[in-house]
């Protein structure tokens, strides 16, 4: 059997996934990169995007928001603030949230709330963008 890569996906609340897989494609800030067994040690931050976990013939896709990846001799560890399987992600909820935040930005009373809402809105926008690209 071919050598496997030990892969762990961790969110602040819990260890989401720990498995031996063939390859993982990670959305790094400076571009996507694939990690195979015996990859050189690497630390990279992540952008909002899709992780592809390839094992045998099937590939699993997960949405991640914010975090970083570390490759060392033991394998690949991804720390993500939000991570969930793409199949469970509902685009509609993000769209509604986006609209709500848009409202908040428009009706914000002070600059502080406005800036915060804008930041949150942009975050959601990038999630929707990623989802749209995935569907297309």
């Amino acid at each position: 059997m071919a050598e496997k890569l030990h892969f762990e996906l961790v969110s602040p609340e819990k260890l989401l996934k720990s498995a031996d897989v063939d390859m993982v494609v990670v959305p790094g800030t400076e571009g996507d990169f694939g990690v195979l067994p015996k990859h050189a040690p690497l630390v990279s931050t992540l952008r909002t995007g899709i992780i592809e976990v390839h094992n045998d013939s099937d590939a699993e896709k997960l949405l991640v928001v914010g975090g970083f990846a570390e490759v060392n001799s033991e394998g690949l560890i991804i720390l993500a603030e939000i991570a969930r399987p793409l199949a469970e992600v509902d685009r509609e909820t993000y769209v509604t949230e986006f609209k709500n935040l848009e409202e908040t930005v428009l009706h914000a009373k002070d600059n502080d709330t406005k800036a915060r809402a804008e930041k949150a809105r942009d975050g959601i926008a990038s999630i929707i963008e990623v989802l749209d690209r995935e569907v297309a």
Partner: protein
Amino acid sequence: MANLKDLRNRIASVTSTQKITKAMKMVSASKLKRAQEAAESARPYAERMENVLSSLASSMKGQSGGPKLLSGTGSNQKQLVIVATSERGLCGGFNTNIVKAAKVKINQLLRDGKDVTVITIGKKGAGVLKREYSDRMVEHFDMSHVKNLAFTDAAPISIRIIDKFEAGEFDVCTLFFAKFVNVLTQIVTPLQLIPASINEEGGTDLAGACYEYEPDENEILEDLLPRNVGIQLFRALLENAVSEQGSRMTAMDSATRNAGDMIDSLRTTYNRSRQAVITNELIEIISGAEAL
């Protein structure tokens, strides 16, 4: 001597109090278990984060111009104290202990001539601190809507804190919370959030490997440090939740026991006075019969 009806009422009311404290003990026992699980499952993330940060920090050591969240502003004049307490009372000395420790620290800082500001999380501590430091309280975070603490509850708080730091409102930030040791012991712990207190020894196991950084170390650090603040805060709040439940459990357990003791002694008094009444009546009847 208290009359019999009064005693009966007392016994009834203490019994229902005991029922309540017993129920609260059970509830907090099960909540404690859940909180402990949550704290447990948050550990891997925090540990990995710490590992990477410490290896990054040790590789940055000696270089100037590192991110301010790590190296500090170079001053410690403006101090921010965050006090995390519970939203509910009836949990023994939990809140009092945290507030007491925070007060000692605040007073000491004030004596040293520092500018102190206070942020509270949870209303129990806020109420007490407001009495003494109302002019220093800059913000309060209400957690009463939170049932099971998730990272998304802690993140906004850490974002606010970092905003304040970047606006130059404080140099050093210390968080007070209770660390859970076991059900009987919770230790109030001050944790320095900013600048990050990183154990530089922790990264030694990685030091052998030559890491590639993408983007470079500095940018990664700048991205990670704010996250780290969030994580530390999240962990502290989780730990606090466990301690709160543990403390409540112990408090309610001893309250239940005290209520039991009280019922016993009330019942003894009740029986005695009942007997006295009966004896009295008998004596009256007998002496009445003798007089005939």
